[in-house]
C-alpha cells in the first residue's frame, strides 16, 4: 500500500516505512541510542531527499527520547541544572546548524555535508568504540580488571564561569557543557541525529559526570534539542514531512520497546561491539558513495523545492 508524503511530494510503500521505523527502533532499543544515525541514511538510500530525511527524522528521536527521559527522571537520574545548560548550548547550536543547512541547500552542497558529517563523526566514534570494546574483551579474557584512574586536573578545570551542579556533585565551568551542547545541536540540525553518541562520551570523559545521571540528562537534552531541530527546520526550510515523521516514529517507538527486552538479555560488551560494527558499516557506505564515481554526474532538482 502506497502512502503519499505531502511535503516530500512522493509516495512510498507504507510497509517499507513501517519496517524501517520498526527495525531502527528495535536496534535503538537494544543499544539504548536514538537511532537517528541509522534512520537518516536509510531514508536517503531509499530515495527521500536528504533535506527532508534529516528534518523529518529529528522528531522521531524526540519521540524515542522523551519516554526514556521521563523514566530516568522518576528514578532521579536527571541533573536538571546540567540539562538546562546543555539544552541552552544545544538550542544555540541547532539554530546555527539549521542556518548552515539552509545555506548549503541553496548552494547545492547539503548532501555532501550530510555525507561528510556522517563519515567523520560515525567513523571516529565507531572506531573508538570498536577499539575500546576489543580492549575490554581482551582484558576480560586475561582476567585483568581495569584500574580505576584518579581523575587528573586538566585545562577544563581552569576555565572561568564556574557553576555548582549539586546533582552531579560537580563545580565546573559552564563553558564546556555549553560547547558540548552546542556541538550536539549543530549535529542534530545537519545530520538528523540526537547526538547521544557524541554527548555521552563527552559527558563521561570530558565533564566527568557521574554515570548514574549521564543517560537521563543526555536524554533530556536530546528530547529538547531534537524538538528545537524539528521546529527550526519547519520554519527555515519547510522540510518536515509530518506524515513521514509520524509513520516512522510510531513504528520506531514500538520497535524500541521490543528492542529493550532483547537488549537486556545481551552482555554490555557484545552490545558495544555490535553497535560499533553497525556504526562503521553505515559510515563505510557513506564514504563509498562519496569516493566511487556516481552513475550520473548530473543531478536535477526543482528550484521551488529548494527554496531558491
Amino acid at each position: 500500500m502506497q502512502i503519499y508524503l505531502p511535503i516530500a511530494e512522493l509516495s512510498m510503500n507504507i510497509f517499507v516505512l513501517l519496517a524501517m521505523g520498526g527495525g531502527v527502533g528495535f536496534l535503538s532499543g537494544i543499544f539504548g541510542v536514538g537511532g537517528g544515525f541509522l534512520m537518516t541514511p536509510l531514508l536517503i538510500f531509499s530515495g527521500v531527499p536528504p533535506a527532508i530525511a534529516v528534518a523529518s527524522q529529528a522528531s522521531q528521536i524526540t519521540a524515542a527520547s522523551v519516554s526514556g527521559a521521563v523514566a530516568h527522571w522518576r528514578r532521579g537520574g536527571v541533573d536538571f541544572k546540567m540539562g538546562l545548560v546543555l539544552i541552552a548550548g544545544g538550542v544555540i547550536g541547532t539554530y546555527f546548524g539549521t542556518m548552515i543547512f539552509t545555506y548549503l541547500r541553496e548552494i547545492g552542497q547539503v548532501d555532501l555535508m550530510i555525507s561528510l558529517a556522517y563519515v567523520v563523526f560515525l567513523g571516529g566514534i565507531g572506531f573508538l568504540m570498536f577499539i575500546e570494546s576489543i580492549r575490554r574483551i581482551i582484558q576480560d579474557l586475561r582476567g585483568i580488571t581495569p584500574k580505576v584512574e584518579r581523575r587528573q586536573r586538566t585545562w577544563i578545570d581552569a576555565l572561568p564561569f564556574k557553576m555548582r551542579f549539586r546533582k552531579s556533585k560537580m563545580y565546573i565551568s559552564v563553558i564546556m557543557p555549553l560547547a558540548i551542547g552546542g556541538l550536539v545541536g549543530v549535529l542534530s540540525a545537519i545530520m538528523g541525529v540526537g547526538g547521544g553518541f557524541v554527548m555521552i562520551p563527552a559527558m563521561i570523559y570530558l565533564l566527568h559526570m557521574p554515570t548514574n545521571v549521564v543517560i537521563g540528562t543526555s536524554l533530556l537534552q536530546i528530547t529538547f534539542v531534537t524538538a528545537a531541530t524539528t521546529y527550526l527546520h519547519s520554519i527555515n526550510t519547510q522540510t518536515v514531512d509530518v506524515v513521514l515523521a509520524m509513520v516512522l516514529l510510531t513504528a520506531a517507538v514500538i520497535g524500541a520497546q521490543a528492542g529493550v527486552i532483547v537488549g537486556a538479555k545481551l552482555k554490555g560488551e557484545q552490545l558495544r561491539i555490535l553497535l560499533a560494527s553497525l556504526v562503521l558499516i553505515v559510515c563505510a557506505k557513506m564514504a563509498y558513495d562519496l569516493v566511487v564515481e556516481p552513475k550520473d554526474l548530473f543531478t536535477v532538482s526543482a528550484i521551488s523545492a529548494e527554496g531558491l
Partner: protein
Amino acid sequence: MFRKSKIAILTVAIIVFGKVNQGRAETLVTDLSQHLIEITSQFSGRELLLFGALERHAMESIQSDDITIQGLDYDIIVVVQSSPTDVVIRKKDKVAGIWINNEDQIIRGVPGYYVIGSTRPLDEFLSKKDQSELGLGLENLRIVNDDGEEIKEYKEALIRNMIEIGLYKESSGNVMVKDEILFRANLAFPSNMPVGNYTADVYLVRDGKVIINHRTDLLVDKRGLERFIFNFAHEYPPYYGIIVVFLAISVGLFTGFVAKKVS
C-alpha cells in the same frame, strides 16, 4: 445539379466546422477521461484515457460521390506536459578524491512532466524541421540557461534524469486508431508527478503536415489532508513545527506509558 447541392452541403459543413485545410474539412474532438487528478494520501499514480474522434461527415459525402481524396490515413501525436518550472542542474566533479557538486546551470521554463506518444515513430511521418518548429519531442524542448545558451551536456543530463524518474517519456505506437475515426491513448502518470496545470495536445498529421491540433486541460492538485498539510507547513511554519513536536512527544510518552503498563 445533384453534385452542386453536395458541394453546397460541403461548403456549409466547412463553415460550420470552421477548420479548413487544403480544401478538406475535418474536426478533431478530444477529451480526457478526467480533467482533475487529485493527489490524496493513497495516491500512487493514475491512469487516464485520452480519446477523441475525427469528424468526417463532409469527406464521406464527397467520397460517396466519387470525388477522389488522398485516402484517410492520418497520424496522431499526443503531448502531455505540465506548466513550465525552473530547475537547477548540478554537475559533480572529483575534488580531492570525492565527488562533489561543482558546477551548475539554472534552467527556467522547462516542463516538469513531458510525455509524447504517437501512432508511429515521428520521423516516419513528420519532417525534422516541422518537429522542431512545433517543439515536438524531447530533443526539441527549449532548454536554455539564463544567457539563452543551450548547453548540450546539461540538456542531455536533464532529459536523461527526467526519463530515469519517469517524468519524461517518448514513445510511439501507443496511440490507437479505430476505424480511422476514433483514437485513444492510455496515459499513465507516476506518483511523483508535479502538481499544477497540465495540457494534453493532440496533433493530427496528414501528408507530413499538421492539419489540426486540439488542446485539453488537466489539473493535478493535492486534495484534502495532503493539500491542508502542505499549505499549513508553508503558511504557518511556527505552528506546524510546534504541532509536529507535540505529536512526537505525545506518541513517545504514550508508548512509554503503555509499555510500562504492559510489562
